[in-house]
C-alpha cells in the first residue's frame, strides 16, 4: 500500500497515560529523535504530584507535550494536533485541550468497563459517536505489543510494559523520525537485561511497521529541519541548564562550588545533577532542612567557596534570615528559587511567578538582593553564570528565579564554547588594606562598593563578621545611629549600582504604540503571541526583563516610550506593582494563576484588545 506523505510546518503531540505507562520516557525519546532530525522544538511535561496515584484514575494521568517545527518556535504549543491516550483517564483528562479535527490515538485494550467506570464514562467513547469531531485511531496497543513479543523470554507483564515503545514506534513512523537513537538508547538502558532490551526494540519496530501497513493510518507527515544558528546543539531542560550554569559559574569564578540543599519539588533535580559532578570539586550537601542548606552554603562562602542553595518558594521562606545574614556580612551566595504554585504547599508540580516580591523584600530590615530570572529553559544556563558573576563581583547573595515550567521544559540549546564564557573571577584579598597593616573587612571598592573578601587561612587578616551592625570600614560592632544610616545606604547603593545590560525592545515596525513586557518564563508565550499579532497585521513591541533587581537603567525610558504597556504575569501583578511604584507608569496587568504557562493564543487576544484601545 502506498501511503500519502504530507508536508507540515509544525506539529504538537501530547503523550498521555497512567503514571506507570512510561509517558515521560516516551516523550523524552520522541524529543531526542526530533532534535536529532533537526527540528526546532519545545517540550512540557506534566506529571501528577502523587508518586503512584491509583492506576487508571484521573489524578494518575501523566503527560508529555512536544511542539516541533521547521522554524524556530517559542513554546510547547497551546493545543495538541495529536493526542496519544493510553487509557480512558488520559483521554478524559486531555480531551478538553484538543481542538476539533485533531488526531486521537487511543489504546483500546485499556478501555474496559472497569477503567471506564473509574473515570465516570457512562459508555465507551471509542464506540459511541462522542468523538466524531476528532480523527480517532482506535488501536489495541497492548495486545499488539504482546503479540509482537510472542516468543521472547519475558513475562507477560514485561511484554505489556513495552506498549509505550510500540506507541513511540507508531508515532515515529507517522512523523518520519530517525530511529537509530532510540535503538541505541534501549540497548544501553537495558544493558544488563538484554532480553528486555531486545523486546523493547522489537515493540518499537512493531509500532513502526504497524503504521506502515495498517489501513487505519493513511498519511504520514514530514516536517523539514529548522534553520537555526549554526553550532553544536543538544536538548536541555531548565533544571539541567541551571545546574550546568552553576558549574560553569564556579569554573569561570575559579572557586569550588558548594551546594547546600534540601529536597523539594521542582528543584531537586538540580541537587541530583550537581551531585554527579564531584570531579569538578563540587561539594553537595543534603542538609537536615532548608535553613541548614543555605546556612552551610554561606559557611562555605565564608571559607572561600561559591556557596549555592537550591529550593522552591516554601524553602525560600525558611531561608530568609540566613539570606539577610549574607546581605549584611556581604558574602557571595546564590539562592535558586524554582517557583511553584503557592501559598504554603500550594501545587508543588505546577508553575507560578508568585515569589518575586518575596525575593525582593522577604527579609527583615533594609535587605536588598539582586534578583534575576531566566527567560527560557536554556537561558537558565546563562543566568546562572550571571548570578555567579554578580555574587562574586559584588559580594552579595543573588536570587535566581526559575519556575516549574522552565525547570521541566526543554528545548534545543546551542552549546556555548567555553571561550565565549566570561571570566568572572575576583581574587581573594591577601594584603592588609588599612593603616599600620590592619585589615578593614568593610573598606569598599570605590567603584563597585564591594568589600574585600579575605578567607580563613590568610595570615594577618584575621577578622570577625556577623549579623550585628558593623562600623563602616572596621566591621566592629556598632550601634552608632549615623553609622547605621550610612551602612544601610551603602548596602542599597551597592545593589543599585550593579552593572546590568540595557533592556532591548523587539519592534520590527519601529512605530508600535503598545509594548508587551514580561519577565522570566513567560518569554516564550509572549513572543509567540506578539508574532501572531504581527502576522495579523498589527504592531506591537516586546521587551523582556531578566534582571529584576536592579532593573536595567533604561527601563523607565522604555516604558514611557509607549502609549500602553501590557504586562502578563502568572501572579496577581507583582512586577506591575514594582514598576508602577518606581516609574509611575500605568502598566496594564494581565494575570492568570492557574499553575500553567500562558497560551500564545490567549495572550495574542489580550494584546489585540490593548492595541484596539489605543
Amino acid at each position, binding site marked *: 500500500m502506498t501511503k500519502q506523505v504530507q508536508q507540515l510546518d509544525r506539529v504538537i503531540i501530547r503523550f498521555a497515560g497512567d503514571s506507570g505507562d512510561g509517558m515521560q520516557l516516551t516523550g523524552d525519546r520522541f524529543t531526542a529523535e526530533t*532534535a*536529532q532530525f*533537526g527540528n526546532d522544538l519545545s517540550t512540557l511535561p506534566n506529571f501528577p504530584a502523587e508518586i503512584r496515584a491509583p492506576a487508571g484514575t484521573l489524578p494518575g494521568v501523566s503527560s508529555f507535550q512536544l511542539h516541533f517545527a521547521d522554524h524556530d518556535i517559542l513554546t510547547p504549543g497551546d493545543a495538541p494536533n495529536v493526542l496519544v491516550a493510553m487509557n480512558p483517564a488520559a483521554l478524559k483528562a486531555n480531551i478538553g485541550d484538543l481542538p476539533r479535527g485533531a488526531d486521537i490515538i487511543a489504546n483500546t485494550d485499556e478501555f474496559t468497563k472497569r477503567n471506564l467506570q473509574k473515570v465516570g464514562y457512562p459508555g465507551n467513547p471509542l464506540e459511541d459517536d462522542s468523538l466524531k469531531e476528532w480523527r480517532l485511531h482506535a488501536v489495541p496497543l497492548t495486545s499488539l505489543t504482546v503479540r509482537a513479543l510472542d516468543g521472547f523470554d519475558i513475562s507477560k507483564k514485561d511484554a505489556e510494559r513495552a506498549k509505550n515503545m510500540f506507541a513511540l514506534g507508531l508515532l515515529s513512523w507517522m512523523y518520519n523520525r530517525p530511529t537509530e*537513537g532510540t535503538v541505541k538508547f534501549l540497548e544501553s538502558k537495558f544493558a544488563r537485561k538484554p532480553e528486555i532490551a531486545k523486546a523493547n526494540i522489537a515493540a518499537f519496530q512493531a509500532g513502526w511497521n504497524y503504521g506502515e501497513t495498517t489501513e487505519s493510518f493513511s498519511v504520514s507527515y514530514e516536517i523539514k529541519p529548522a534553520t*537555526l*544558528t*549554526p*553550532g*553544536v*546543539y*543538544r*536538548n536541555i531542560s531548565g533544571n539541567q541548564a541551571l545546574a*550546568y550554569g552553576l*558549574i*560553569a559559574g564556579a*569554573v569561570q569564578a575559579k572557586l*569550588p562550588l*558548594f551546594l*547546600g540543599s534540601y529536597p523539594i519539588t521542582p528543584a531537586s533535580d538540580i541537587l541530583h545533577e550537581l551531585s554527579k*559532578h*564531584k*570531579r*569538578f*570539586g*563540587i*561539594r553537595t*550537601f543534603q*542538609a*537536615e532542612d532548608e*535553613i*541548614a542548606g543555605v*546556612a*552551610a552554603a554561606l*559557611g*562555605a562562602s*565564608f*571559607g*572561600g*567557596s561559591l*556557596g549555592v542553595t537550591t529550593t522552591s518558594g516554601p524553602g525560600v521562606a525558611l531561608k530568609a*534570615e*540566613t539570606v539577610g*545574614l549574607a546581605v549584611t556580612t556581604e558574602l557571595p551566595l546564590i539562592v535558586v528559587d524554582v517557583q511553584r504554585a503557592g501559598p504554603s504547599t500550594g501545587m508543588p508540580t505546577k508553575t507560578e511567578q508568585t515569589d518575586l516580591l518575596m525575593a525582593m523584600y522577604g527579609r527583615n530590615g533594609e535587605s536588598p538582593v539582586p534578583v534575576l530570572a531566566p527567560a527560557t529553559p536554556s537561558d537558565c544556563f546563562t543566568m546562572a553564570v550571571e548570578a555567579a558573576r554578580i555574587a562574586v563581583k559584588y559580594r552579595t547573595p543573588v536570587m535566581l528565579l526559575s519556575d516549574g515550567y522552565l525547570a521541566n521544559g526543554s528545548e534545543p540549546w546551542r*552549546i*556555548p*564554547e*567555553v571561550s565565549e564564557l566570561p571570566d568572572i573571577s575576583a581574587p581573594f584579598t591577601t594584603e592588609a588594606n588599612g593603616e599600620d597593616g590592619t585589615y578593614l573587612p568593610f573598606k569598599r571598592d570605590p567603584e563597585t562598593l564591594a568589600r574585600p573578601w579575605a578567607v*580563613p*587561612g590568610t*595570615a*594577618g*587578616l*584575621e*577578622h*570577625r*563578621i*556577623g*549579623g550585628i551592625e558593623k562600623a563602616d570600614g572596621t566591621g*566592629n*560592632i556598632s550601634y552608632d545611629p549615623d553609622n547605621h544610616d550610612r551602612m544601610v545606604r551603602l548596602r542599597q547603593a551597592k545593589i543599585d549600582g550593579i552593572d546590568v545590560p540595557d533592556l532591548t525592545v523587539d519592534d520590527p515596525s519601529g512605530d508600535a504604540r503598545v509594548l508587551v513586557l514580561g519577565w522570566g518564563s513567560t518569554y516564550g508565550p509572549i513572543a509567540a503571541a506578539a508574532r501572531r499579532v504581527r502576522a495579523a497585521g498589527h504592531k506591537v513591541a516586546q521587551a523582556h526583563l531578566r534582571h529584576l533587581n536592579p532593573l536595567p537603567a533604561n527601563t523607565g525610558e522604555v516604558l514611557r516610550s509607549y502609549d500602553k504597556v501590557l504586562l502578563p504575569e502568572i501572579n496577581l501583578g507583582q512586577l506591575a506593582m514594582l514598576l508602577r511604584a518606581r516609574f509611575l507608569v500605568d502598566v496594564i496587568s494581565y494575570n492568570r494563576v492557574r499553575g500553567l504557562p500562558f497560551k500564545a493564543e490567549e495572550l495574542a487576544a489580550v494584546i489585540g484588545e490593548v492595541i484596539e484601545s489605543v
Partner: protein
Amino acid sequence: MSDSFNGGLNGKGLALIPRTDSKQTLKDFKSDQEVRWCPGCGDYAILAAVQSFLPELGLRRENIVFVSGIGCSSRFPYYLNTYGFHSIHGRAPAIATGLAASRPDLSVWVITGDGDALSIGGNHLIHALRRNVNLNILLFNNRIYGLTKGQYSPTSEIGKITKSTPMGSLDKPFNPISLALGAEAGFVARTMDSDRKHLQGVLRQAAEHRGASLVEIYQNCNIFNDGAFDTLKDPGTRDEITVRLEHGQPIVFGTGENERAVRLSPTGGVEVVRRAEVADGEILVHDAHNPDPSLAFALSRLDEPAFEHVPMGVFRSIDRPSYDHLLNEQLATATADKGEGSLADLLHGGDTWTIG
C-alpha cells in the same frame, strides 16, 4: 583502646591543620575589642581559659575559626583574634558545617548556649553530631535565657519561676549529654567554667579529636540564674556529688563514709552504691572508647534527679571518619576515576547535533 584512637590523642585530629612556626602566647589570641559581658559572668572565665589554651595547640592562628549563634555566649568570637563569624540564632552548627566540610585545613569551633543549641538550633546540633562534622562545639549551659533577660531555657529545671513562667515552667529539661550521646556523637564531655584545669584538659581532647566534639560547660549566669551550679563548686558539697570520669579508672566518688561507686544495675543501666558495699571487681571501669554508646548514656543519666550526682569529664571519645574526610574522599575518588572535570566535555555530553 584502639590504636587509631591513640593516634587521635597524639594529635592526629589536628594533622590537616597547618602548624605555627612562631611561639604564641595568650596575647596573640586577644582581639582589640572590649569584652562586654556582665561583671561576674562565667563567660569571662571560659574566655580566659580558651585564650590561654589555644597557644598550646600550636596551630596557625589564621587557620582557627570561631562560629557562634545568638546569645550572650555567642559574642565570644569578637574577643578572639582568629577568624570569626557571629551568625544567627541556632544556625552556627549548620554554618560551621559548610565551612568545615569545605575546609579540612581549619580548626572550627562553635560557641553556643543552651537556648541557641537546644531550642532554636536543636535540629542542626543533632545532625552535626550524627554526621561527625569536624567541629568543636562548646555549649555554655547556664540553664536560663540571659540575652533576652531571664526566660526559662530548655535546660531549666521543671517549675522554674521566670518572667515567662510566673507559675513555674512545665517542661522537662534536656540533658545535653544524653542528647549528644543519643545522636551518637563521637566525643562528648562535660566541664565547669570555674575549673580552668579541667576545662582546658577537656578542650585539649576535644580539639585533638577529629570529628564532632560536644563539650557542655556549666556556666554561671550571675544575673538571671545565679548559683545554679553552686553545689558543684562549694568545697562542702562538691566532692560528694561530682563523679569524675576518667578513662580506664573505676568510677568512685565521695569521701570517707560517703564514698560511693558506680556499678552495672540489674535493670541494664548503672547505679550508685556505697563503696563499702561493693567488691572492687564490681565497680564499673570507665571506658570512653567503647563503640557502643549505651553505657555512656547510662552514666549521663546519673544526674537524675538533677545534681544528686553529676558526672564530669569525657563520657565518650571514639574514632570514626569525619564528614569532611568522607566528602573530600568522594571528590578525590571521582577525580581519580574519571580525571578532573572539563567544562567543554560536560556541556557537550549527551546527544548532540551540528547545524551549519
